[in-house]
């Protein structure tokens, strides 16, 4: 965002990677990739790859952080040093800490945390390859990992980004569109009741445009939801 480029991001209605404005990238999802975790998943949106592992519900230490009537969720979003073109300095940064927190807030409403008092559910998200929309890819992976771990859930969580590039409303932004576009909005929602648990925005949009993006994302989210369901069923149909 904010960066300038002379390159046209949309030429004759096609985006830099040849997609239509309302087309999502190729999606690949796999469940049960980490044998040591209670649940795990790998999700790929085009060139963005995220892997998520869920541990627990397990006992939480230090003890003073335990909640007597419910479990808490701990979330970590981390980008691998090799995930971007220029090496990312390893370790938490201001950005990754913020994303960890919003991821936790996006996931918490779907979990039946009151079933596991004094426990913790740990969600670790690693970005192996980053090409835009990493937080939504990570949340999709976390949703699958939580379901795989057998943590009771109200619904699966579907995440998808929308935005504006070269005055055109698009969905599922790639790295280039994210950097040079006018705005991007990561959206996380619960597919059954269409409740939104995460909505952030970077850039400038009119209220009208936001409404349209929201509509497009909720519609395209159905595809992502279907993919999630397929991935979960596939683990047990081998």
């Amino acid at each position: 965002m904010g960066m300038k480029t002379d390159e046209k991001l949309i030429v004759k209605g096609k985006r830099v990677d040849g997609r239509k404005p309302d087309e999502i990238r190729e999606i690949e999802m796999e469940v049960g990739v980490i044998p040591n975790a209670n649940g795990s998943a790998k999700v790929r949106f085009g060139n963005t790859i995220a892997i998520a592992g869920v541990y627990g519900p397990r006992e939480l230490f230090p003890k003073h952080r335990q909640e007597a009537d419910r479990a808490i969720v701990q979330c970590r979003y981390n980008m691998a040093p090799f995930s971007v073109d220029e090496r990312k300095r390893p370790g938490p940064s201001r950005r990754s800490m913020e994303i960890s927190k919003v991821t936790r807030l996006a996931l918490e409403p779907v979990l039946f945390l009151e079933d596991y008092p004094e426990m913790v559910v740990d969600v670790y998200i690693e970005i192996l390859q980053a090409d835009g929309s990493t937080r939504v890819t990570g949340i999709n992976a976390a949703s699958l990992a939580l379901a795989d771990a057998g943590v009771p859930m109200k619904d699966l969580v579907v995440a998808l980004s929308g935005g504006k590039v070269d005055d055109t409303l698009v969905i599922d932004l790639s790295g280039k569109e994210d950097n040079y576009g006018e705005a991007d909005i990561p959206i996380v929602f619960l597919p059954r009741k269409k409740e939104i648990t995460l909505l952030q925005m970077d850039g400038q949009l009119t209220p009208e445009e936001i409404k349209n993006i929201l509509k497009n994302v909720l519609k395209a989210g159905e595809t992502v939801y279907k993919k999630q369901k397929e991935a979960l069923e596939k683990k047990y149909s081998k």
Partner: protein
Amino acid sequence: MMTEMRKIVVPGEVLGDVKEKNSGYGTFSEDGKIISKFLGIPKDSSGYLSVVPLSGVYTPRRQDKVIGFVISVEKVGWVVDINSPWTSFLSLSEAVDEFVDLKRTDLRRFYDVGDVIYAQVSDVRGSDVQLSMKTPITRKLRGGVTVKITPSKVPRLIGKEGSMINTIKEKTKTIIRVGQNGVVWISGEKINKAIKAVKLIEEKSHIVGLTDEITKLLSD
């Protein structure tokens, strides 16, 4: 090989209407609909819709028979790991019938760290889980090996009226104890074969016609 699959539901999938059915284990109701909580196999028995999860941790419930590992000896009892996020406590009065003079007796005489016990969950209050050894069936398990499986798959391992577990016991000449918490204790002659069978059930619990496959494996 049989590969017919049971239907699998995902969390948030609508199973039925509150007006027609009741919401059972693994489900919740919202806006008049019964919805699955887990990734699992849906079941419809006597008007109750329930979901058997395919994974997850063990949640202790009263009356459950579990296999636990003694992890520490306290002043008036033992702390027992029951393969659950919560540890449980076996108090002296629930474990030993005779009078014990605490001043003179070392509790390790009864159960020591590392012992495997088959016990009953006598009480669950929030995160406080109590065990009991008062039921006749409970005892200390000597020798043998333990295998852990997903707790929700225990009913499948046992089978209808114990059909599955009895087949394994007979064919491998072993003694098997299954805890509700997913710990399986095996002792006897062909232990390796029994372990193989248990692991196969764990892996393929969602496939129809599993009993035949197990019988085949065991008769080889």
